[in-house]
Protein backbone atom coordinates (compact mmCIF):
# COMPACT_ATOMS: atom_id res chain seq x y z
CA UNK A 1 0.00 0.00 0.00
CA UNK A 2 1.22 3.49 -0.89
CA UNK A 3 0.74 5.87 2.06
CA UNK A 4 1.17 9.09 0.13
CA UNK A 5 -1.36 8.04 -2.50
CA UNK A 6 -3.81 6.87 0.14
CA UNK A 7 -3.62 10.16 2.02
CA UNK A 8 -4.07 12.11 -1.21
CA UNK A 9 -7.10 10.10 -2.32
CA UNK A 10 -8.80 10.31 1.11
CA UNK A 11 -8.36 14.09 1.16
CA UNK A 12 -9.50 14.37 -2.46
CA UNK A 13 -12.65 12.40 -1.61
CA UNK A 14 -13.49 14.86 1.15
CA UNK A 15 -12.95 17.73 -1.31
CA UNK A 16 -15.32 16.11 -3.81
CA UNK A 17 -17.92 15.61 -1.08
CA UNK A 18 -17.95 19.39 -0.55
CA UNK A 19 -18.93 19.89 -4.18
CA UNK A 20 -22.45 18.58 -3.58
CA UNK A 21 -23.37 21.20 -0.96
CA UNK A 22 -21.48 23.67 -3.17
CA UNK A 23 -23.69 22.70 -6.08
CA UNK A 24 -26.73 23.03 -3.83
CA UNK A 25 -25.78 26.66 -3.10
CA UNK A 26 -24.89 27.32 -6.74
CA UNK A 27 -28.33 26.13 -7.84
CA UNK A 28 -30.17 27.29 -4.73
CA UNK A 29 -29.21 30.94 -5.24
CA UNK A 30 -30.39 30.82 -8.84
CA UNK A 31 -34.01 29.90 -8.19
CA UNK A 32 -36.81 32.09 -6.91
CA UNK A 33 -37.10 32.37 -3.17
CA UNK A 34 -40.21 30.21 -2.86
CA UNK A 35 -38.38 27.03 -3.89
CA UNK A 36 -34.87 27.77 -2.66
CA UNK A 37 -34.84 25.12 0.06
CA UNK A 38 -36.25 22.51 -2.30
CA UNK A 39 -33.39 23.24 -4.70
CA UNK A 40 -30.84 22.77 -1.91
CA UNK A 41 -32.53 19.56 -0.81
CA UNK A 42 -32.58 18.01 -4.29
CA UNK A 43 -28.78 18.01 -4.20
CA UNK A 44 -28.35 17.27 -0.51
CA UNK A 45 -30.61 14.19 -0.54
CA UNK A 46 -28.19 12.52 -2.95
CA UNK A 47 -25.59 12.40 -0.15
CA UNK A 48 -27.89 10.08 1.74
CA UNK A 49 -29.47 8.01 -1.01
CA UNK A 50 -26.38 7.31 -3.09
CA UNK A 51 -24.09 6.57 -0.13
CA UNK A 52 -26.46 3.78 0.88
CA UNK A 53 -26.92 2.43 -2.66
CA UNK A 54 -23.15 2.48 -3.19
CA UNK A 55 -22.59 0.00 -0.38
CA UNK A 56 -25.64 -2.13 -1.22
CA UNK A 57 -24.80 -2.68 -4.89
CA UNK A 58 -23.45 0.48 -6.56
CA UNK A 59 -19.77 -0.16 -6.00
CA UNK A 60 -20.13 -3.75 -7.17
CA UNK A 61 -22.04 -2.84 -10.36
CA UNK A 62 -19.49 -0.14 -11.19
CA UNK A 63 -16.14 -1.60 -10.20
CA UNK A 64 -16.88 -5.30 -9.73
CA UNK A 65 -15.43 -7.70 -12.31
CA UNK A 66 -17.04 -7.36 -15.71
CA UNK A 67 -20.03 -9.58 -16.47
CA UNK A 68 -19.10 -9.65 -20.14
CA UNK A 69 -18.93 -7.18 -22.99
CA UNK A 70 -17.68 -4.39 -20.75
CA UNK A 71 -21.25 -3.41 -19.89
CA UNK A 72 -21.60 -3.85 -16.11
CA UNK A 73 -19.83 -5.07 -13.01
CA UNK A 74 -20.90 -8.30 -11.31
CA UNK A 75 -22.47 -8.70 -7.88
CA UNK A 76 -19.37 -10.10 -6.11
CA UNK A 77 -19.06 -7.07 -3.85
CA UNK A 78 -22.74 -6.61 -3.09
CA UNK A 79 -23.06 -5.16 0.42
CA UNK A 80 -19.26 -4.54 0.28
CA UNK A 81 -18.75 -8.31 0.47
CA UNK A 82 -15.09 -9.26 0.44
CA UNK A 83 -13.86 -5.72 1.06
CA UNK A 84 -11.85 -5.09 4.21
CA UNK A 85 -9.22 -2.53 5.22
CA UNK A 86 -6.47 -4.75 3.78
CA UNK A 87 -8.04 -5.02 0.29
CA UNK A 88 -6.00 -3.09 -2.28
CA UNK A 89 -6.89 -1.27 -5.50
CA UNK A 90 -4.26 -0.90 -8.23
CA UNK A 91 -0.85 -2.42 -8.77
CA UNK A 92 1.69 -2.86 -6.03
CA UNK A 93 3.90 0.23 -5.64
CA UNK A 94 0.99 2.64 -6.20
CA UNK A 95 -1.84 0.62 -4.67
CA UNK A 96 -4.33 2.21 -2.27
CA UNK A 97 -6.97 0.55 -0.07
CA UNK A 98 -10.12 -0.41 -1.95
CA UNK A 99 -12.01 1.47 0.76
CA UNK A 100 -10.17 4.70 -0.11
CA UNK A 101 -10.93 4.18 -3.80
CA UNK A 102 -14.58 3.33 -3.11
CA UNK A 103 -14.91 6.37 -0.79
CA UNK A 104 -13.51 8.63 -3.53
CA UNK A 105 -15.67 7.17 -6.29
CA UNK A 106 -18.79 7.35 -4.13
CA UNK A 107 -18.56 11.13 -4.15
CA UNK A 108 -18.75 11.12 -7.97
CA UNK A 109 -21.84 8.94 -7.83
CA UNK A 110 -23.38 11.44 -5.35
CA UNK A 111 -22.81 14.63 -7.32
CA UNK A 112 -23.81 13.31 -10.75
CA UNK A 113 -27.55 12.87 -10.03
CA UNK A 114 -27.47 16.12 -8.03
CA UNK A 115 -26.30 17.93 -11.19
CA UNK A 116 -29.51 16.89 -12.97
CA UNK A 117 -31.66 18.81 -10.48
CA UNK A 118 -30.77 22.14 -12.07
CA UNK A 119 -32.73 21.24 -15.18
CA UNK A 120 -35.94 20.58 -13.28
CA UNK A 121 -36.01 23.41 -10.73
CA UNK A 122 -39.21 24.55 -9.04
CA UNK A 123 -41.59 21.86 -10.28
CA UNK A 124 -40.73 18.30 -9.19
CA UNK A 125 -42.36 16.37 -6.36
CA UNK A 126 -39.67 15.75 -3.79
CA UNK A 127 -40.53 12.08 -3.23
CA UNK A 128 -40.64 11.43 -6.95
CA UNK A 129 -37.26 13.11 -7.34
CA UNK A 130 -35.74 10.90 -4.66
CA UNK A 131 -37.13 7.81 -6.41
CA UNK A 132 -35.82 9.11 -9.73
CA UNK A 133 -32.23 9.50 -8.54
CA UNK A 134 -32.38 6.07 -6.88
CA UNK A 135 -33.35 4.46 -10.20
CA UNK A 136 -31.12 6.72 -12.26
CA UNK A 137 -27.85 6.00 -10.51
CA UNK A 138 -28.72 2.30 -10.65
CA UNK A 139 -29.48 1.95 -14.35
CA UNK A 140 -27.57 4.91 -15.80
CA UNK A 141 -24.69 6.11 -13.63
CA UNK A 142 -23.30 2.78 -12.37
CA UNK A 143 -23.22 1.18 -15.85
CA UNK A 144 -21.80 4.26 -17.59
CA UNK A 145 -19.09 4.72 -14.96
CA UNK A 146 -18.25 1.04 -15.48
CA UNK A 147 -17.95 1.53 -19.26
CA UNK A 148 -15.59 4.47 -18.86
CA UNK A 149 -13.46 3.73 -15.79
CA UNK A 150 -13.39 0.00 -15.13
CA UNK A 151 -10.42 -1.61 -16.90
CA UNK A 152 -12.76 -4.01 -18.72
CA UNK A 153 -15.38 -1.33 -19.52
CA UNK A 154 -16.07 -1.18 -23.25
CA UNK A 155 -15.36 2.54 -23.66
CA UNK A 156 -12.19 2.20 -21.56
CA UNK A 157 -11.03 -0.54 -23.93
CA UNK A 158 -11.79 1.70 -26.94
CA UNK A 159 -9.21 4.09 -25.43
CA UNK A 160 -11.68 6.92 -24.85
CA UNK A 161 -9.94 9.52 -22.69
CA UNK A 162 -12.13 10.57 -19.79
CA UNK A 163 -9.83 11.39 -16.94
CA UNK A 164 -12.29 12.60 -14.32
CA UNK A 165 -15.78 12.42 -15.74
CA UNK A 166 -16.55 14.44 -18.90
CA UNK A 167 -18.70 11.60 -20.18
CA UNK A 168 -19.71 9.63 -17.08
CA UNK A 169 -20.52 12.72 -15.00
CA UNK A 170 -21.21 15.77 -17.15
CA UNK A 171 -22.53 14.49 -20.47
CA UNK A 172 -24.41 11.88 -18.50
CA UNK A 173 -26.08 14.40 -16.15
CA UNK A 174 -26.63 16.96 -18.92
CA UNK A 175 -28.42 14.50 -21.22
CA UNK A 176 -30.51 13.23 -18.30
CA UNK A 177 -31.40 16.81 -17.35
CA UNK A 178 -32.65 17.49 -20.86
CA UNK A 179 -34.72 14.29 -20.90
CA UNK A 180 -36.38 14.95 -17.52
CA UNK A 181 -37.01 18.61 -18.37
CA UNK A 182 -38.79 17.48 -21.55
CA UNK A 183 -40.94 14.95 -19.68
CA UNK A 184 -41.84 17.53 -17.02
CA UNK A 185 -42.57 20.46 -19.28
CA UNK A 186 -41.89 24.12 -18.62
CA UNK A 187 -42.26 25.99 -15.37
CA UNK A 188 -45.46 28.00 -15.17
CA UNK A 189 -44.58 31.42 -16.57
CA UNK A 190 -41.45 30.30 -18.45
CA UNK A 191 -40.30 33.02 -20.89
CA UNK A 192 -43.01 35.31 -19.52
CA UNK A 193 -42.25 35.97 -15.86
CA UNK A 194 -38.87 37.29 -14.78
CA UNK A 195 -37.40 34.28 -12.96
CA UNK A 196 -34.53 36.14 -11.41
CA UNK A 197 -31.97 34.41 -9.21
CA UNK A 198 -33.02 35.23 -5.66
CA UNK A 199 -29.51 35.27 -4.14
CA UNK A 200 -26.48 35.80 -6.35
CA UNK A 201 -23.97 35.87 -3.46
CA UNK A 202 -25.11 32.31 -2.70
CA UNK A 203 -24.45 31.37 -6.34
CA UNK A 204 -20.95 32.84 -6.08
CA UNK A 205 -20.32 30.97 -2.82
CA UNK A 206 -21.48 27.77 -4.48
CA UNK A 207 -19.25 28.22 -7.50
CA UNK A 208 -16.30 28.91 -5.17
CA UNK A 209 -16.95 25.69 -3.25
CA UNK A 210 -17.28 23.79 -6.52
CA UNK A 211 -14.00 25.22 -7.79
CA UNK A 212 -12.23 24.25 -4.56
CA UNK A 213 -13.73 20.76 -4.43
CA UNK A 214 -12.98 20.22 -8.11
CA UNK A 215 -9.25 19.99 -7.38
CA UNK A 216 -10.08 16.78 -5.52
CA UNK A 217 -12.36 15.67 -8.33
CA UNK A 218 -9.80 16.22 -11.08
CA UNK A 219 -6.36 15.82 -9.50
CA UNK A 220 -7.62 13.09 -7.19
CA UNK A 221 -8.65 11.06 -10.23
CA UNK A 222 -4.95 10.33 -10.78
CA UNK A 223 -5.37 8.13 -7.67
CA UNK A 224 -1.74 8.97 -6.91
CA UNK A 225 0.18 11.94 -5.55
CA UNK A 226 2.28 12.42 -8.66
CA UNK A 227 3.02 14.61 -11.68
CA UNK A 228 -0.23 13.68 -13.43
CA UNK A 229 -2.18 14.94 -10.44
CA UNK A 230 -0.13 18.14 -10.36
CA UNK A 231 -0.64 18.74 -14.08
CA UNK A 232 -4.37 18.13 -13.67
CA UNK A 233 -4.62 20.46 -10.67
CA UNK A 234 -2.79 23.23 -12.46
CA UNK A 235 -4.75 22.85 -15.70
CA UNK A 236 -7.98 22.89 -13.69
CA UNK A 237 -7.10 26.28 -12.26
CA UNK A 238 -5.97 27.67 -15.61
CA UNK A 239 -8.89 26.48 -17.73
CA UNK A 240 -11.42 27.60 -15.11
CA UNK A 241 -9.96 31.09 -14.87
CA UNK A 242 -9.80 31.49 -18.65
CA UNK A 243 -13.34 30.14 -19.10
CA UNK A 244 -14.60 32.78 -16.69
CA UNK A 245 -12.85 35.47 -18.75
CA UNK A 246 -14.29 33.99 -21.96
CA UNK A 247 -17.84 33.97 -20.62
CA UNK A 248 -17.55 37.54 -19.29
CA UNK A 249 -16.08 38.83 -22.55
CA UNK A 250 -18.89 37.25 -24.59
CA UNK A 251 -21.45 38.67 -22.20
CA UNK A 252 -19.98 42.16 -22.20
CA UNK A 253 -20.00 42.27 -26.01
CA UNK A 254 -23.39 40.62 -26.44
CA UNK A 255 -25.38 41.99 -23.49
CA UNK A 256 -23.39 44.95 -22.24
CA UNK A 257 -22.43 43.94 -18.69
CA UNK A 258 -20.00 41.76 -16.74
CA UNK A 259 -22.46 39.81 -14.62
CA UNK A 260 -21.77 37.98 -11.38
CA UNK A 261 -23.84 35.06 -12.60
CA UNK A 262 -21.73 35.03 -15.77
CA UNK A 263 -18.49 34.85 -13.79
CA UNK A 264 -19.81 31.97 -11.66
CA UNK A 265 -21.21 30.14 -14.67
CA UNK A 266 -18.08 30.62 -16.76
CA UNK A 267 -15.97 29.13 -13.99
CA UNK A 268 -18.21 26.07 -13.81
CA UNK A 269 -18.17 25.68 -17.61
CA UNK A 270 -14.36 25.68 -17.50
CA UNK A 271 -14.30 23.14 -14.68
CA UNK A 272 -16.60 20.88 -16.67
CA UNK A 273 -14.58 21.10 -19.87
CA UNK A 274 -11.20 20.48 -18.24
CA UNK A 275 -12.51 17.45 -16.33
CA UNK A 276 -12.05 14.83 -19.07
CA UNK A 277 -9.07 16.50 -20.63
CA UNK A 278 -6.82 18.17 -18.08
CA UNK A 279 -4.38 15.32 -17.52
CA UNK A 280 -3.69 14.79 -21.23
CA UNK A 281 -2.96 18.39 -22.27
CA UNK A 282 -0.37 21.03 -21.42
CA UNK A 283 -1.01 24.58 -20.25
CA UNK A 284 -1.72 25.86 -23.78
CA UNK A 285 -4.25 23.09 -24.29
CA UNK A 286 -5.92 24.08 -21.01
CA UNK A 287 -6.12 27.72 -22.10
CA UNK A 288 -7.77 26.77 -25.40
CA UNK A 289 -10.21 24.40 -23.69
CA UNK A 290 -11.11 27.03 -21.08
CA UNK A 291 -11.63 29.81 -23.60
CA UNK A 292 -13.74 27.70 -25.95
CA UNK A 293 -15.84 26.40 -23.05
CA UNK A 294 -16.45 29.90 -21.64
CA UNK A 295 -17.53 31.42 -24.93
CA UNK A 296 -19.50 28.48 -26.34
CA UNK A 297 -21.35 27.73 -23.09
CA UNK A 298 -22.34 31.36 -22.63
CA UNK A 299 -23.88 31.17 -26.08
CA UNK A 300 -25.40 27.73 -25.46
CA UNK A 301 -27.45 28.83 -22.44
CA UNK A 302 -29.64 30.92 -24.75
CA UNK A 303 -30.64 27.87 -26.81
CA UNK A 304 -33.43 26.93 -24.41
CA UNK A 305 -35.31 30.11 -25.25
CA UNK A 306 -34.90 29.53 -28.98
CA UNK A 307 -35.80 25.83 -28.85
CA UNK A 308 -38.42 26.18 -26.12
CA UNK A 309 -37.32 23.60 -23.51
CA UNK A 310 -37.08 24.72 -19.89
CA UNK A 311 -33.65 23.58 -18.72
CA UNK A 312 -34.14 25.90 -15.78
CA UNK A 313 -30.57 26.39 -14.53
CA UNK A 314 -28.75 25.45 -17.73
CA UNK A 315 -27.55 21.93 -17.03
CA UNK A 316 -27.59 21.36 -20.80
CA UNK A 317 -25.89 24.63 -21.69
CA UNK A 318 -23.13 24.22 -19.13
CA UNK A 319 -22.68 20.51 -18.31
CA UNK A 320 -23.76 18.79 -21.53
CA UNK A 321 -22.19 21.31 -23.89
CA UNK A 322 -19.12 21.81 -21.67
CA UNK A 323 -18.70 18.06 -21.27
CA UNK A 324 -18.91 17.46 -25.01
CA UNK A 325 -16.43 20.27 -25.70
CA UNK A 326 -13.89 18.96 -23.21
CA UNK A 327 -14.30 15.37 -24.34
CA UNK A 328 -13.86 16.24 -28.03
CA UNK A 329 -11.13 18.86 -27.63
CA UNK A 330 -8.87 16.46 -25.76
CA UNK A 331 -9.02 14.28 -28.87
CA UNK A 332 -7.28 17.04 -30.78
CA UNK A 333 -5.16 18.61 -28.06
CA UNK A 334 -3.80 15.55 -26.21
CA UNK A 335 -0.01 15.69 -25.94
CA UNK A 336 2.57 12.90 -26.47
CA UNK A 337 1.36 12.20 -30.01
CA UNK A 338 -2.04 10.90 -28.84
CA UNK A 339 -4.12 13.81 -30.17
CA UNK A 340 -5.39 13.65 -33.75
CA UNK A 341 -8.37 12.72 -35.86
CA UNK A 342 -8.16 9.07 -34.80
CA UNK A 343 -8.44 9.99 -31.12
CA UNK A 344 -11.14 12.56 -31.93
CA UNK A 345 -13.20 9.74 -33.43
CA UNK A 346 -12.82 7.68 -30.24
CA UNK A 347 -13.80 10.67 -28.13
CA UNK A 348 -16.88 11.31 -30.26
CA UNK A 349 -17.90 7.66 -29.87
CA UNK A 350 -17.63 7.97 -26.07
CA UNK A 351 -19.43 11.30 -25.90
CA UNK A 352 -22.35 10.39 -28.11
CA UNK A 353 -23.01 6.87 -26.84
CA UNK A 354 -23.18 8.18 -23.28
CA UNK A 355 -25.37 11.08 -24.41
CA UNK A 356 -27.85 8.84 -26.22
CA UNK A 357 -27.93 6.10 -23.58
CA UNK A 358 -28.45 8.58 -20.76
CA UNK A 359 -31.06 10.60 -22.65
CA UNK A 360 -33.15 7.57 -23.64
CA UNK A 361 -33.05 5.75 -20.30
CA UNK A 362 -33.60 8.94 -18.27
CA UNK A 363 -36.59 9.82 -20.44
CA UNK A 364 -38.10 6.35 -19.87
CA UNK A 365 -37.49 6.53 -16.10
CA UNK A 366 -38.99 10.00 -15.79
CA UNK A 367 -42.00 9.01 -17.90
CA UNK A 368 -42.53 5.83 -15.88
CA UNK A 369 -42.53 7.78 -12.62
CA UNK A 370 -44.79 10.42 -14.12
CA UNK A 371 -47.51 7.96 -15.18
CA UNK A 372 -47.36 5.97 -11.92
CA UNK A 373 -46.86 8.20 -8.87
CA UNK A 374 -46.62 11.52 -10.76
CA UNK A 375 -43.41 13.50 -11.22
CA UNK A 376 -44.64 17.04 -11.46
CA UNK A 377 -45.87 19.14 -8.55
CA UNK A 378 -49.46 20.37 -8.73
CA UNK A 379 -50.09 23.86 -10.04
CA UNK A 380 -50.93 25.11 -6.54
CA UNK A 381 -47.72 23.70 -5.10
CA UNK A 382 -45.63 25.15 -7.90
CA UNK A 383 -47.16 28.61 -7.73
CA UNK A 384 -47.10 28.70 -3.92
CA UNK A 385 -43.55 27.37 -3.81
CA UNK A 386 -42.18 23.89 -3.17
CA UNK A 387 -40.58 24.92 0.14
CA UNK A 388 -43.95 25.16 1.84
CA UNK A 389 -45.43 22.22 -0.05
CA UNK A 390 -42.74 19.61 0.59
CA UNK A 391 -40.52 20.87 3.37
CA UNK A 392 -42.88 22.91 5.59
CA UNK A 393 -40.25 25.63 5.81
CA UNK A 394 -39.35 29.03 4.42
CA UNK A 395 -35.80 29.95 3.41
CA UNK A 396 -35.71 33.44 4.90
CA UNK A 397 -37.54 35.40 7.58
CA UNK A 398 -38.70 38.53 5.82
CA UNK A 399 -40.67 39.99 8.73
CA UNK A 400 -38.17 42.73 9.64
CA UNK A 401 -37.94 45.92 7.58
CA UNK A 402 -34.78 45.39 5.59
CA UNK A 403 -32.45 47.94 4.10
CA UNK A 404 -33.02 50.81 6.55
CA UNK A 405 -32.17 51.18 10.21
CA UNK A 406 -34.67 51.92 12.86
CA UNK A 407 -32.90 55.06 14.05
CA UNK A 408 -31.67 55.43 17.61
CA UNK A 409 -33.94 58.43 18.18
CA UNK A 410 -37.04 56.57 17.01
CA UNK A 411 -36.31 53.82 19.48
CA UNK A 412 -35.66 56.41 22.20
CA UNK A 413 -39.06 58.05 21.71
CA UNK A 414 -40.76 54.68 22.05
CA UNK A 415 -38.83 54.08 25.27
CA UNK A 416 -39.96 57.45 26.62
CA UNK A 417 -43.55 56.49 26.09
CA UNK A 418 -43.17 53.11 27.74
CA UNK A 419 -41.22 54.78 30.53
CA UNK A 420 -44.23 57.00 31.26
CA UNK A 421 -46.58 54.07 31.19
CA UNK A 422 -44.41 51.70 33.17
CA UNK A 423 -45.81 52.25 36.70
CA UNK A 424 -49.34 51.62 35.49
CA UNK A 425 -48.21 48.42 33.82
CA UNK A 426 -46.67 47.24 37.05
CA UNK A 427 -49.90 47.78 38.91
CA UNK A 428 -51.78 45.82 36.34
CA UNK A 429 -49.25 43.02 36.56
CA UNK A 430 -49.48 42.94 40.37
Amino acid at each position, binding site marked *: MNGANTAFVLISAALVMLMTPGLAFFYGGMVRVKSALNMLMMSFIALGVVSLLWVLFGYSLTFGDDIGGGLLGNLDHIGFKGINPESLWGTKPDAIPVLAFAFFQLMFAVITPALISGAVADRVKFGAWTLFITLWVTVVYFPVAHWVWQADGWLFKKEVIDFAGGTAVHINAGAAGLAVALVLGKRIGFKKD*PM*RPHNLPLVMLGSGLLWFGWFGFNAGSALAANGTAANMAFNTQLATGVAMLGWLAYERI*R*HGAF*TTLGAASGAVAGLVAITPSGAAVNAWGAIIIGLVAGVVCSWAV*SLKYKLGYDDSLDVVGVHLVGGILGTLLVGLLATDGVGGLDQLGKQALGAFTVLIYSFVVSWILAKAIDVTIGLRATEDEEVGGLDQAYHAETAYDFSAVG*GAHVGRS*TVASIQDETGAGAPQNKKVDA
Partner: protein
Amino acid sequence: MKLITAVVKPHRLDEIKEALQAFGVHGLTVTEASGYGRQRGHTEVYRGAEYTIDLVPKVRIEVLVEDDDADDLIEVVVKSARTGKIGDGKVWSVPVDTAVRVRTGERGPDAL
Protein backbone atom coordinates in the same frame (compact mmCIF):
# COMPACT_ATOMS: atom_id res chain seq x y z
CA MET B 1 -55.78 65.59 11.40
CA LYS B 2 -54.05 64.57 8.22
CA LEU B 3 -52.23 61.46 7.15
CA ILE B 4 -49.15 62.32 5.16
CA THR B 5 -47.92 59.51 2.93
CA ALA B 6 -44.62 59.64 1.10
CA VAL B 7 -43.38 57.01 -1.36
CA VAL B 8 -39.72 57.77 -1.91
CA LYS B 9 -36.31 56.35 -2.74
CA PRO B 10 -35.15 53.95 0.00
CA HIS B 11 -31.75 55.57 0.45
CA ARG B 12 -33.39 58.90 1.45
CA LEU B 13 -35.10 57.32 4.46
CA ASP B 14 -32.48 58.31 7.01
CA GLU B 15 -32.42 61.94 5.82
CA ILE B 16 -36.19 62.16 5.96
CA LYS B 17 -36.32 60.65 9.43
CA GLU B 18 -33.80 63.16 10.74
CA ALA B 19 -35.64 66.07 9.13
CA LEU B 20 -38.95 64.90 10.62
CA GLN B 21 -37.35 64.54 14.01
CA ALA B 22 -36.02 68.08 13.83
CA PHE B 23 -39.52 69.23 12.87
CA GLY B 24 -40.88 67.59 16.03
CA VAL B 25 -42.57 64.47 14.72
CA HIS B 26 -42.72 61.80 17.43
CA GLY B 27 -43.52 58.71 15.40
CA LEU B 28 -43.83 57.39 11.93
CA THR B 29 -44.44 54.13 10.09
CA VAL B 30 -42.18 52.83 7.34
CA THR B 31 -43.01 50.03 4.93
CA GLU B 32 -41.00 48.59 2.10
CA ALA B 33 -42.89 49.10 -1.11
CA SER B 34 -42.36 48.69 -4.81
CA GLY B 35 -43.77 50.54 -7.73
CA TYR B 36 -43.06 52.72 -10.68
CA GLY B 37 -43.77 56.24 -11.84
CA ARG B 38 -42.52 58.04 -14.90
CA GLN B 39 -39.08 56.47 -14.66
CA ARG B 40 -40.62 53.00 -15.19
CA GLY B 41 -38.36 50.07 -14.26
CA HIS B 42 -34.98 48.93 -15.45
CA THR B 43 -33.48 46.00 -17.34
CA GLU B 44 -31.54 43.15 -15.74
CA VAL B 45 -29.62 40.42 -17.58
CA TYR B 46 -29.23 36.87 -16.26
CA ARG B 47 -27.28 34.45 -18.45
CA GLY B 48 -28.27 36.43 -21.49
CA ALA B 49 -31.97 36.59 -20.66
CA GLU B 50 -33.08 40.20 -20.32
CA TYR B 51 -35.81 40.92 -17.83
CA THR B 52 -37.64 44.22 -17.60
CA ILE B 53 -38.11 44.89 -13.92
CA ASP B 54 -41.14 47.19 -13.79
CA LEU B 55 -41.40 47.60 -10.06
CA VAL B 56 -38.50 49.27 -8.33
CA PRO B 57 -37.95 49.29 -4.56
CA LYS B 58 -39.37 52.25 -2.62
CA VAL B 59 -40.17 53.04 0.98
CA ARG B 60 -43.57 54.25 2.06
CA ILE B 61 -43.50 56.61 5.03
CA GLU B 62 -46.69 57.48 6.90
CA VAL B 63 -47.06 60.25 9.47
CA LEU B 64 -50.17 61.55 11.26
CA VAL B 65 -50.18 65.32 11.93
CA GLU B 66 -52.48 68.06 13.03
CA ASP B 67 -54.10 70.02 10.20
CA ASP B 68 -52.05 73.18 10.80
CA ASP B 69 -48.75 71.35 10.50
CA ALA B 70 -49.63 69.39 7.37
CA ASP B 71 -48.30 71.77 4.72
CA ASP B 72 -45.06 72.46 6.56
CA LEU B 73 -44.49 68.80 7.15
CA ILE B 74 -45.05 67.96 3.48
CA GLU B 75 -42.46 70.60 2.67
CA VAL B 76 -39.98 69.03 5.09
CA VAL B 77 -40.47 65.59 3.55
CA VAL B 78 -40.20 66.84 -0.02
CA LYS B 79 -37.02 68.78 0.71
CA SER B 80 -35.29 65.92 2.46
CA ALA B 81 -36.40 63.32 -0.11
CA ARG B 82 -35.34 65.23 -3.19
CA THR B 83 -32.32 64.14 -5.25
CA GLY B 84 -33.42 66.00 -8.39
CA LYS B 85 -33.35 62.84 -10.46
CA ILE B 86 -36.32 61.04 -11.98
CA GLY B 87 -37.87 58.52 -9.59
CA ASP B 88 -37.78 60.70 -6.45
CA GLY B 89 -41.36 59.71 -5.61
CA LYS B 90 -44.57 61.36 -4.40
CA VAL B 91 -45.96 62.85 -1.20
CA TRP B 92 -49.65 63.32 -0.50
CA SER B 93 -52.02 63.94 2.37
CA VAL B 94 -55.54 62.79 3.20
CA PRO B 95 -57.91 63.87 5.98
CA VAL B 96 -58.23 61.54 8.96
CA ASP B 97 -61.42 61.30 11.04
CA THR B 98 -59.95 60.03 14.22
CA ALA B 99 -56.90 58.44 15.80
CA VAL B 100 -56.62 56.52 19.08
CA ARG B 101 -53.53 55.84 21.17
CA VAL B 102 -53.94 52.15 21.94
CA ARG B 103 -52.24 52.20 25.36
CA THR B 104 -54.23 55.04 26.93
CA GLY B 105 -57.31 55.35 24.76
CA GLU B 106 -56.58 59.08 24.10
CA ARG B 107 -58.36 60.33 20.97
CA GLY B 108 -57.79 62.93 18.27
CA PRO B 109 -54.78 65.27 18.39
CA ASP B 110 -53.95 64.03 21.93
CA ALA B 111 -53.20 60.65 20.44
CA LEU B 112 -50.46 62.03 18.16
